[in-house]
């Protein structure tokens, strides 16, 4: 007979579960409400979702750092807190975009389940980042991904279906690689918990070269899965198609939240190797990051559609982030979060601006929804919108003083610091490659600015700003303000992030 196990409630440290629990309960609440009365307006759900997210943010913010809960399964360290906050904030900006028009304007918003699924997805991502157990990471990842596939498909256009199925299939393959990577690590160390794995590897450090092969095998397999989610070359191929097929805000959301969640996971997994000074891993990541940013930049350069361009650009941003990730210094890791925080406001804003001009039937073009031509002469048609979009583009290009400049500055600074500290010219080359890529990137962002500001407007009835609405304006206005005034809050933000990241030992 088995001994009964007694577990004290305190030792579970349930508070660490609270953020995810709030999201899940919120989702269930929405489902229940829908169950009772199915004629309720979506505004209710939007507001409910926002409230839940607010509470969630509060709960996350009030977490004590570096606590574990639930048999050490949950980990509320700085990384998880800061990434959850960014995820939740991005979600908070994303949800009100649903208010853009009446219930029947867009297919997905007609479902209350949309919001439930959204909250489930958020919970999934939260689980992903607040654990260092590969099992929970995987389950959280799949929960979030499955919701995301559905959310994309619910847009219910041909593009959305195609996008969902592409994303889904590639995601399944990536899941296979993730699992195979886990197998490799598990086989090597006998554990699926990263902190244990780190300990074991460290203790075995002596004859590390003998282990190089299985270790690198695990890293490579994991990197395929990570590469898929954060869209590194050549696992990025879903990105432009899926972004194009999904609704614009969803695309913007996808360019931040899933990537950030996966970056945190990558930080946890590859951090082990990097902390062990296994340089091969750093080099591997850096090389693939450089290839990613360069090629995606070049491809972005030749896009005809703004949304696709932004998709490629977000791939290149991911390359940037991964390059910093490979350094493993506190500054590099902090810079990643700063980067994402800054990227979030800008990129969400940019995609939301696309949303304004998204139309159901009046496709601008046989092929594209948002070709550059559509934005011709926007300055004379809708000056405020053009200015704001221009600011977002400049911010993406890294022109000071807009938000992403600070992210870029700090990120490149971390690379340069690393180069000086290690006295390795390689990293200076990396920094230069990164800035050269920024310069290439500037071209395509500028291309949109040029279209908006410097070209003559098209004949008047071809462009419909059908989605312009007050909630949208408010969201975009807030995002624009945050983008412009970044110089004033960089300091506290940086302080906060650095504190969180460094206190959890990254």
């Amino acid at each position: 007979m088995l001994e009964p196990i007694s577990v004290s409630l305190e030792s579970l440290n349930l508070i660490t579960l609270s953020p995810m629990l709030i999201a899940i309960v919120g989702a269930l609440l929405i489902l229940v409400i829908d169950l009772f009365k199915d004629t309720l307006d979506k505004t209710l759900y939007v507001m409910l979702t926002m409230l839940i997210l607010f509470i969630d943010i509060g709960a996350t913010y009030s977490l004590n750092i570096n606590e574990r809960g639930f048999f050490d399964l949950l980990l509320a360290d700085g990384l998880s807190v800061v990434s959850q906050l960014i995820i939740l904030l991005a979600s908070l900006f994303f949800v009100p975009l649903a208010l853009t028009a009446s219930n029947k304007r867009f297919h997905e918003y007609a479902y209350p389940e949309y919001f439930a699924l959204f909250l489930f997805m958020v919970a999934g991502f939260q689980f992903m980042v607040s654990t260092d157990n590969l099992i929970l990471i995987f389950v959280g990842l799949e929960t979030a991904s499955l919701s995301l596939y559905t959310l994309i498909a619910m847009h219910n256009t041909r593009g959305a279906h195609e996008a969902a199925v592409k994303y889904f299939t590639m995601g399944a393959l990536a899941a296979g690689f993730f699992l195979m990577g886990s197998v490799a690590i598990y086989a090597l160390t006998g554990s699926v918990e990263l902190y244990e794995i780190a300990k074991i590897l460290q203790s075995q450090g002596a004859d590390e070269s003998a282990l190089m092969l299985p270790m690198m095998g695990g890293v490579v397999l994991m990197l395929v899965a990570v590469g898929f989610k954060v869209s590194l070359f050549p696992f990025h191929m879903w990105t432009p198609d899926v972004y194009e097929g999904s609704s614009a805000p969803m695309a913007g959301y996808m360019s931040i939240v899933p990537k950030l969640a996966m970056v945190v996971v990558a930080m946890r997994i590859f951090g082990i190797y990097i902390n062990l000074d296994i340089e091969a891993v750093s080099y591997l990541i850096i090389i693939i990051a450089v290839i990613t940013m360069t090629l995606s930049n070049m491809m972005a350069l030749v896009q005809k559609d703004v949304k696709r361009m932004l998709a490629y650009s977000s791939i290149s941003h991911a390359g940037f982030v991964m390059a910093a990730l490979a350094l493993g210094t506190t500054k590099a890791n902090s810079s990643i979060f700063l980067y994402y925080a800054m990227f979030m406001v800008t990129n969400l804003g940019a995609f939301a601006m696309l949303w304004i001009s998204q139309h159901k039937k009046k496709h601008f073009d046989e092929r594209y929804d948002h070709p550059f031509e559509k934005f011709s002469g926007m300055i004379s048609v809708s000056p405020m919108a053009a200015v704001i979009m221009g600011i977002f583009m400049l911010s993406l290009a890294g022109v000071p003083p807009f938000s992403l400049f600070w992210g870029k500055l700090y990120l490149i600074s971390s690379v340069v610091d690393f180069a000086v500290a290690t006295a390795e010219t390689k990293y200076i080359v990396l920094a230069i490659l990164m800035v050269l890529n920024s310069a290439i990137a500037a071209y395509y962002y500028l291309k949109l600015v040029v279209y908006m500001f410097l070209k003559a407007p098209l004949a008047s009835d071809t462009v419909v700003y059908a989605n312009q609405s007050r909630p949208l304006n408010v969201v975009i206005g807030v995002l624009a303000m945050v983008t412009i005034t970044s110089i004033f809050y960089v300091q506290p933000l940086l302080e906060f992030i650095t504190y969180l990241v460094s206190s959890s030992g990254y």
Partner: protein
Amino acid sequence: MENLVYIALFAPLAGSLFAALFGMSKKNIITGIVTSTLIFISFVASAILFSHVMTVGPVHVRMMDWIMAGDMLIPFGFLVDQISVTMMTVVTLVSTVVHIYSNGYMDHDKSFNRFFSYLSAFVFSMMVLVMSDNFLGLFIGWEGVGVCSWLLIGFWYHKEDVSREVNPSISPSWAANEAFIMNRIADLGMLVGIFILYWNVGSLQYDVVFAALPNLSDGILVAAAVALFIGAMGKSAQFPLHTWLTDAMEGPTPVSALIHAATMVTAGVFLVIRANPLYSMEAVHWVSYFIAALGTFVAVFAASMALVNRDLKRIIAFSTLSQLGYMFAAAGLGAYWIALFHLAAHAFFKALLFLGAGNVMHAMDGELDIFKMGGLKKVMRWTYLYMGVASLALSGIGIAGIGFAGYFSKDAIIEVAFNEHTYVLWTILVLTAGLTAFYSFRQVFLTFHGNERYHALGIHPHEMYGYVLVALSPLAILAVVAGFYKDWFEHFVTKLLPEYHMSEHTHHIAWILGLLVIAFAVGGIVLAYIKYNRGLKRNEKLERSFVYRLLSNQYYIPIFYEKTISKPYAALSRFSWGTVDQKVVDATVDGIGKFIKTTGDTTRKIQTGNLSDYLRWMAGGALLLVAIAFVAFKLSQGAH
């Protein structure tokens, strides 16, 4: 005295600015009167200063600081000593005459006011040039006269460019640009000279520099001397930078008289005289000798071209060139005061000659070809007289201590050449004296004597206005009598300039030498009389001969410059622009952009839209990662 210095200096500027106020309006005689008066005031001030310098000594004023940077301190300082006061007096005197003359000469020109503005500005610049107490101040004047010369040569800017065959100067604006650019080439040399002095002495004040010369190494002295002389070569139109001077005759004749005969072109000589402590240094001996040799060469070279020229003003211009050669010969040989004396004397008779030519031109409705004139003495008595006197002075006619101005100054130079045992130079100079006499009188006879060829052109010549003729009289008088003040002048300037004494031997045979020169001069005149007194008999065969064509085409030097410098420069410029800049430099930049774009277009094709391909890329990517991991592993191994 300080006030007088400022009056002498700024009166012309005031005149210029006054005239400039009316620059764009119709002719206003007041501008002419005001400017002339102001220049005359300047002359008076200069004359008083002259006597002051003579009796009391030099005046040195320092108006204000100009440039101060690092250790460099350049003030606006003015030094009125024997050299500068001589120049001031000569310049203002000639200027006064030219101003008055211009009132008459320019009276039909619609840009009358503008002309006086430029002319007075020139006088101001020239005064700055001669009065400055430092090299950079001299450079201000140097460049200033250059600009005024540019403005005045190009005064009739509206004339069209014509081919070199029709008008060797192409057009006034062309000639102006040529003059400016050629001067600029020399100015660079001058600037370099200034730099050399500054960095080795630490100052550009004349007194400081000259005091420091003995401490400088030979190389630096030579470099400075050469660089400064290059500057002088440009302004004084020495070979090979001489072509601009004859082309400068496109300007109105008073301009030619003032700038391109009497004053500006002598600035180079002035510089050498001013910098005499430098050129007297033993280390720069060879440079000085080179100056003398070049001067001698230019003397004969210019005279030879004058022999066949048909253009009244160009003949005089060549003669100016030739006389500048004389001056350099004197300066180079160390006889600075003689050079200065010749400079002054030359200013009087050459200005007179030019102004006389201006009268002729005025009478002939702008016609300058002496082959088309003849017999003008009947209608233009006074002009004939003036030009005759000036030509006699130029030819250096005189005997036994009595003679025209040129006799004293030029003879002295020839004597110096003999005295220095530079017999080759001496020979050439003597020969040149003969040539000078010949071409001067060829021109006089062809213009004033013989048959009246102008009737064919339907021109009715008339004499110049009376007041103009009166105004010319001081020059005529000076051309006659200036020589008598030689000893007095020597006494005056050698307080500052090194004395120059003929050796005993030279002194003894001086009268023979003088006679020889006179013989050549008279011979030239006689030859000219024989050939041209009765009128023009053209010798077709001679005119077709190689030598004649060589001379009349100025040794083909302008064409040579055009073919070897201007045109290749233009072609090279077009090449730089069309090929290098656009097809290489810019194309590289655009090429990088295109390369990135092309790569993007190519890479983009992997994005086929087909899920199957994507999945394969993913699997392939896994293998790629393996490969990269291998590379990374090797890299990390290599690092340790």
